[in-house]
C-alpha cells in the first residue's frame, strides 16, 4: 500500500526549515513563484482522486478508487505495469511522473456538486493536488471541471456520459475519456435496426434532468433517423423509486419498444418494474416487445440481476474485450482485487495514465503544457482501439461497445456480452453542435 505523505509544496517547507528556521517568517505570494497552481517542487507529485464514497454511487466510486490505486502503483513502477505495457506512447518509465513519485489524496464527492467541489478544493488548497480526477455523474463532472478551470489544475473526468461535459459546459482544463449520450445513440441505432427492424414504435422513459434529456434526444434522433417512431416520452423524477405508474401505461400506448433513459438506481428500478410487468413476454404490433437501456454499466447490471438478460445497451468498455490492452488491465486489476474491473474503473485508470503520459511528453506539470500534449493526441493500446483526444472539445473518440445482457452468465461478473464494436468514425460528430466555449487553459498562479 502506498504510504501517503500529505506534504504540500515541499520547497516552501524545506526552504524555510533549512534557511532562517523559525526566525524569519516569509511572506509568499500565492503560488506565484511556480508559474502554475501547486507546481510539485519536491520529489513527489500529488494527484487528487475525487470519487463518490458515500451515496448511491459509492460502489462505483470504490471501483474507481481501486483503479486509481492500481494506476499509481503502475506509474511508480510497481505491479505488472498493466496497460503501461500496451499503451502506444512509451513516455512513461515506471519511475513516477517526470521522475517524481506519485502520491495521492482522496475525496468524497457524495455525488453532489457542492460536496464534490468542496473536496476538490480541499485537495487543491490543502494537499496541493496538481490534477483532479474521478466522479460518477455529469453534474459533478461539470461542477468540478469548472472549479479546476478557475483553480488552474487539470481535470480528468471520470464516469460522465452527458453531452454537456465536453459540450456546452466544456472547459480548457477539462478532459473526458468516457463516451457520451450522442455516441450511445449513434452506436445503438444501427444495431437496433438490425435486430429489431426499422418500423418500431418507441416509448421513452427519461430521467428528468440534463443527462436524461441529452440521452433521450440522442437515442430519439438516431432511431428516428432509421425509421422508428417515438410514441411517447415521459419524464420521471430522479427521486422516483417505484416506476410502476410509468411502466403500466406503456403497453396501452401501442409502443413495442421501451427505452429507459435511466442510470444507476433509477435504471435498476425501472428495468426491474418493466420486466415484472411482463413487458418482454408480450407481443405488440406483431413483434416481440423489447427494452433498451442506452447506458449500461456492470454494477447496474449486477443490481438489476437477471432482468438485464437480452437487453441492449451501450458501454464504454467491458472486461471481456480481447485486445491486448484490455487483457493486460483485467489481469493486473483482477489479480490485485479478485474481480474484473468495471467500465468506471477502466476510464479512471486510463485517464490517470493519459495524464501522466501527457506530463511526461510535455516535460512539465503546467496545465497548459499538459493540455497541449493531450489535445489532438492519438493513442492505442488502452482497450478501446485507436483513440483521439480531440482538440476542439477535449473529448475522446474511440470505438463504442454495444452490449446485451447475457442470457446464460458463466460467473457473477459475466453479465454483459459484446454485440458490436461500433467504430469511432461512426460516432464522431461536429464539435460545434453542442455549443459551449472551451476558453483557454488556465495555469492558475
Amino acid at each position, binding site marked *: 500500500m502506498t504510504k501517503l505523505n500529505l506534504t504540500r509544496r515541499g520547497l516552501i517547507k524545506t526552504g524555510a526549515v533549512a534557511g532562517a528556521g523559525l526566525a524569519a517568517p516569509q511572506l509568499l505570494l500565492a503560488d506565484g513563484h511556480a508559474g502554475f497552481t501547486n507546481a510539485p517542487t519536491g520529489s513527489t507529485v500529488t494527484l487528487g482522486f475525487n470519487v463518490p464514497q458515500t451515496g*448511491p454511487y459509492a460502489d462505483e466510486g470504490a471501483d474507481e478508487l481501486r483503479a486509481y490505486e492500481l494506476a499509481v502503483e503502475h506509474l511508480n513502477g510497481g505491479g505488472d505495469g498493466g496497460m503501461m505495457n500496451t499503451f502506444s506512447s512509451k513516455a512513461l518509465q515506471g519511475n513516477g511522473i517526470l521522475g517524481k513519485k506519485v502520491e495521492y489524496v482522496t475525496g468524497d464527492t457524495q455525488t453532489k456538486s457542492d460536496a464534490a467541489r468542496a473536496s476538490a478544493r480541499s485537495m487543491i488548497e490543502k494537499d496541493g493536488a496538481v490534477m483532479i480526477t474521478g466522479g460518477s455523474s455529469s453534474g459533478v463532472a461539470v461542477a468540478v471541471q469548472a472549479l479546476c478551470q478557475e483553480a488552474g489544475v487539470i481535470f480528468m473526468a471520470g464516469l460522465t456520459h452527458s453531452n454537456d461535459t465536453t459540450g456546452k459546459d466544456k472547459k480548457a482544463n477539462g478532459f473526458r475519456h468516457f463516451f457520451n449520450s450522442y455516441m450511445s445513440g449513434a452506436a445503438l441505432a444501427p444495431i437496433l435496426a438490425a435486430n429489431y427492424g426499422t418500423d418500431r414504435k418507441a416509448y421513452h422513459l427519461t430521467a428528468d434532468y440534463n443527462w436524461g434529456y441529452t440521452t433521450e434526444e440522442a437515442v430519439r434522433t438516431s432511431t428516428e433517423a432509421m425509421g422508428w417512431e417515438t410514441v411517447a416520452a*415521459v419524464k420521471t*423524477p430522479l427521486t422516483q423509486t*417505484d416506476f410502476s405508474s410509468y411502466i403500466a401505461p406503456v*403497453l396501452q400506448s401501442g409502443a413495442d419498444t421501451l427505452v429507459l433513459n435511466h442510470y444507476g438506481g433509477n435504471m435498476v428500478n425501472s428495468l426491474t418494474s418493466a420486466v415484472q*410487468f411482463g413487458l418482454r413476454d408480450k407481443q405488440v404490433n406483431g413483434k416481440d416487445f423489447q427494452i433498451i437501456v442506452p447506458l449500461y454499466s456492470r454494477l447496474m447490471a449486477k*443490481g*438489476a440481476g437477471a432482468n438485464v438478460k437480452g437487453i441492449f445497451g451501450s458501454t464504454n468498455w467491458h472486461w471481456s474485450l480481447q485486445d491486448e490492452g484490455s487483457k493486460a488491465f483485467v489481469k493486473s486489476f483482477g489479480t490485485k482485487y479478485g474481480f474484473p474491473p468495471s467500465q468506471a474503473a477502466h476510464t479512471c485508470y486510463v485517464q490517470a495514465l493519459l495524464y501522466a503520459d501527457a506530463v511526461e511528453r510535455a516535460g512539465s506539470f503546467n496545465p497548459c503544457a499538459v493540455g497541449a500534449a493531450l489535445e489532438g493526441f492519438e493513442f492505442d493500446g488502452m482497450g478501446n482501439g485507436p483513440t483521439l483526444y480531440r482538440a476542439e472539445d477535449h473529448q475522446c473518440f474511440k470505438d463504442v461497445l454495444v452490449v446485451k445482457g447475457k442470457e446464460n452468465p458463466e460467473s457473477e*461478473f*459475466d453479465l454483459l456480452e459484446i454485440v458490436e464494436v461500433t467504430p469511432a468514425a461512426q460516432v464522431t460528430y461536429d464539435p460545434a453542435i453542442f455549443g459551449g466555449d472551451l476558453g483557454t487553459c488556465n495555469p492558475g498562479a
Partner: protein
Amino acid sequence: MEAIILQFLNGLDKGSAYALIALGLTLIFGTLGVVNFAHGALFMIGAFCAVTLQKILSLSKVTIDPTKTDFLGNPAKVKTPYVQEWFGPDVGAFIIDWSVPLALILAVPVMIAVGVAMERGLIKHFYKRPHADQILVTFGLAIVLQELIKYFFGANPIQTPMPEAFKGSFDFGAAVGIDPNVIIYPYWRLIYFAFAMVVIGAVFAFLQFTTFGMVVRAGMADRETVGILGIDIDKRFTMMFGLAAAVAGLAGVMYGPINAPNYHMGMDFLVLSFVVVVVGGMGSLPGAVLAGFLLGVLESFASMEAVLNTLPGLNQIIIYLVAIIVLLTRPRGLLGRKGVMED
C-alpha cells in the same frame, strides 16, 4: 379510460406500500407518542432480512473445475450452494428461489427483537422529551443504521427476486373479455396488495377485538388513566413497538422483489411516509391508511403522460402539493384528532 383504470389500480397498489409504512409509524406515534424517524430504517432492515437469508441460503461450497477458466484464465471456481448439496439440486434451487417468502418467517422474530431493543434501549428515554428531540434522535439512528447496512452490504442494490411461480403478470383485460395487454398487472404486486390488506386488517382486528388491543387503544386515548387503573401499559407499549417494527419489516421483505433493496430505501420512503401520516392525521390509523391510498392514486395519476404534457413537473411535486393543500384546508389532516402534535 383504460389508462385511468390502470393508474387507479396502480395507485392502490402503490398506496398499499405507503399505507403499510404509515400504519407502523402511526401505531408508534399513537401509542407511544413518539415520532419515529427511524421507521424507514426498520423497513429497510426488513428488506435486508430477505437479502441476508438469500445470502445464507446461497452460501456455497467452492470447487475447482479444471475444464473451465475464470476471467483471468485461471481454473474456474464453481460454487454449489450447500442447500443444493444437502437437499439435492432441485430442492435446493427451490429453497433459494423461495427465499423471500421464507424471509417472512425470519423477519418476524428479528424485527420484533430489533423493535423491542430500540424501544428499551433508546426510545423509552425519550417519552418525556420534546417531539423535536424524538425526531432528531431517531433521525440520527436512521443515519447510523443505514450506514451500517451500507458498510456490510455495499451501496449497490441487491436483487431479491420473487419465486419463479409468481413471475409474470395478470391480464385483467383478457380476464374480463376486453382487449388483452391493456390492463395488466404483475402477480407479485397483486400479492403485495393482498398482503398489505391482510396486515392492515389484522392490525385493526387486533386493536379492535383483543383485550390487549383494547388496553392499547385506551392507552392511546388517555395514557394516564390507563396507568392509574394499574395496568402495566409500558410493557404493552414495548410490545406495540415490536409489532410496529414487525409490520415495517414485513413490508420491507415483501417489497424486495418489487425494487431491489438498497441501503437508502428507508430514507427514500421516510419523507414520503411522513407526508402520508401527516396528511392522514397524526395518530389516526384509518387516516394513515386512507392517506396512503390517496397519495398513491394521486401520484399515479400525476405520472400520466397526458397530465405531464399539460403540467410538466407535476409528478415531481404532487405528494408535497397534496400535503400543503390538505394541511391548509384540514389543519389536522384528513382524520386527525384535535390537539395532537401542535405544541
